[in-house]
């Protein structure tokens, strides 16, 4: 077992009810739940592999595929919806040529939508890598994506 998983599982082994907490910790660190770590969790917590898969699949917080380096989360809550969240999602998917939840081919971006992030007063809201961007417009979103791209290109050249 990797040192990383060993740390996460410390004090939690043989406790099936810790499954969701363990998945959260792996998701947070690695960005997704790999097949291999699923097997380890199953063995160490005493939960059948199919149950690990079922739980990881049921909750939106967990991804079974690797995600892009930069995560663009678009809020699709009611307040964002009535203030124009749809064009934002269209803009992000169109510009990056991906579907929701997919990573771009270069692995740089994943576009996700979440049902509400609880900053409805500032709708529509986009979260890029955990940083909130309030009162978004398609133009502002485009500029934001371009900025990240440029920074990536510069660091690649450097």
């Amino acid at each position, binding site marked *: 077992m990797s040192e990383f998983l060993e740390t996460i599982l410390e004090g939690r082994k043989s406790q*099936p*009810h*810790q*499954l*969701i*907490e363990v*998945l*959260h910790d792996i998701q947070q660190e690695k960005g997704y739940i790999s097949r291999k770590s699923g097997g380890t969790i199953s063995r160490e917590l005493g*939960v059948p592999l199919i*149950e690990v898969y*079922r*739980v990881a699949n*049921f*909750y*939106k*917080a*967990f991804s079974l595929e690797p995600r892009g380096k930069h995560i663009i989360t678009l809020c*699709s*809550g*009611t*307040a964002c*919806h*009535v*203030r*124009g969240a*749809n*064009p934002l999602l*269209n*803009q992000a*998917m*169109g*510009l990056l040529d991906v579907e929701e939840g997919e990573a771009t081919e270069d692995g740089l971006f994943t576009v996700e939508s*979440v*049902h*509400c*992030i*609880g*900053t*409805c*007063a*500032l*709708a529509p*809201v986009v979260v890029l890598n*955990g940083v*909130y*961007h*309030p009162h978004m*417009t*398609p*133009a502002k979103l*485009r500029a934001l994506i371009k900025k990240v791209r440029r920074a990536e290109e510069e660091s690649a050249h450097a």
Partner: protein
Amino acid sequence: MPKIASITDLAALRDRLLSVRSKDAVLITVCGGPGCQATECHNVSAEVRRELDTNGLGEKVRLRVTGCHGFCEQGPIMVIDPANVFYGQVKPADVGEILNRTVIQGEVIDRLLYTDPATKKKVVTEAEIPFYRAQNPTLLSQNRQVDPLSIEDYLAIGGYAGLARVLAGTEPEKVIAEIEASGLRGRGGGGFPTARKWAACRAAHGEEKYVICNADEGDPGAFMDRGILEGNPHAVIEGMLIGAYAIGAEHGYIYVRNEYPIAVVHAREAIRQAMEYGFLGGDILGSGMRFDIDIARGGGAFVCGESTALMASIEGKVGEPRPKDVHTVEHGLWNKPTTLNNVETWANVPSIINNGAAWFSGMGTDSSKGTKILALTGKVRNTGLVEVAFGTTLRTVVEEIGGGASDGKAIKAVQTGGPSGGCLPAYLFDLPVDFDILWEKGSMIGSGGLVVMDEKTCMVDVAKYFLNFLQDESCGKCVPCRIGVDRMLEIVTDITEGRGRPEQIPLLQELGETVAHTALCGLGKTAPNPALSTLRYFSEEYEAHIREASCPAGVCKSLIEYTIDSAHCDGCGACLTSCPQGAIQGEKDRLHTIDREACTKCGICPTVCARNAITVQ
């Protein structure tokens, strides 16, 4: 800090805290709520801290970063006391001037003051701002007085005094009787009488009992629980302690959405501090009571807001509800008697114990007592968290506190109660905020989300939005919700895409009523509300979609076309570069045109046109 061993020690500590604090000359409060964080309030508070350090003002001036004040639209917010000066949309660059002119010289900086949109006059103090004037903040006023990461701030405003009072010799039954007399009902949506739940759980057989705080605020358009748990976590912990004492529980859980990372951090830190001070753990305040709290992070499933699904999730399982003929107060978490209340309900408990049931029941209506925090959002000028006494009319909330429409368009409806609630038309705005009255009108107060909609909001699209959400979030366990909601979505989609037939309206109605009667859990039973309420109050919009194949609000893609008006287009190229499909053609300074074949009607181009030349037909 050594543990507080007795009730007398607690009182002595509070006196000491208050005597030290009275010497503070000036207090600068920076709101650190979710809204202000998104507008980078942390840069403002960091700048204040830096300036205080470099100017040596740290002795005389104190900085406090608090939870949400409510007026998110004006973030980052700063209040300077004792003068109560309110500054909105403060930038780090303003901080030096604020310290020089307002803090040291006592002047007011005009440019940072709030302008009352009705009178166009500048308003100096927080208390004079119309947004706050019609409110009755009991919980949110605590938010403004405490740094959520400081248990001493909470102690200084009388924190844990309610716990001390019950531990000083109030019988658990008396605590329950006090809560019953207050009329407190669950703030999570159901509005179930809190005392009845507690009494049943106390009476249930079994040594091991649990209390749970539901902080899985999954309703889109709701963030009051986030505001409290992030802003004043100790009030929630104290409420849970009082509840645990009344019920006879030794262990509690806070089940919190992982989408609220700061709430998780603040709740964890508050639990750590409460352990350190001896409010959690063994022999609490020398009473012999023992209680501890764990945090369980939610996985982003709306259904886990339902009590039995939430309990399954704490057990590490898939969050599926189970039939409630076996009550959770008898067989809940791990099959043990369990009391589950939401964040706002728990946070109300200490105030009720401190101020008495009569104080609480003195606010509100016959059947709904106390105050309710509402998340006021959508097409309204002042958005944010609002706390009003039950009985306040929707009109007061939308027009007085909310300041009316955001951009001069006519307000058409409010959506209350999230996906379980419904849409109420503007002519019903004289209805009071009340559990039972809104339910009779086909909506509900729910957890308190209040989304304002104007003439540019299509009500059929709103119904589709919620059905889509509910279908996506349905756990799939029972047929009425899994298939019924899906069929309802199919019908509404047909209508929004121009394939609607008149006979689908009664079918939609019948399906909705069937799902409401037969679904397994509360969320499934209320799932048809958004569709049924829009059918009830906005049937003419459904008619227009079906009979005239038109969307009056200009929202439904299949029924609209975008056109560039040759009279207004100046060929600036803004729309051309913004179109992700490349569907707009034209040379610089020449009239642009939209290629209908390639256009996906994504709605971006009208938002970028400075001359409003792109129209919807």
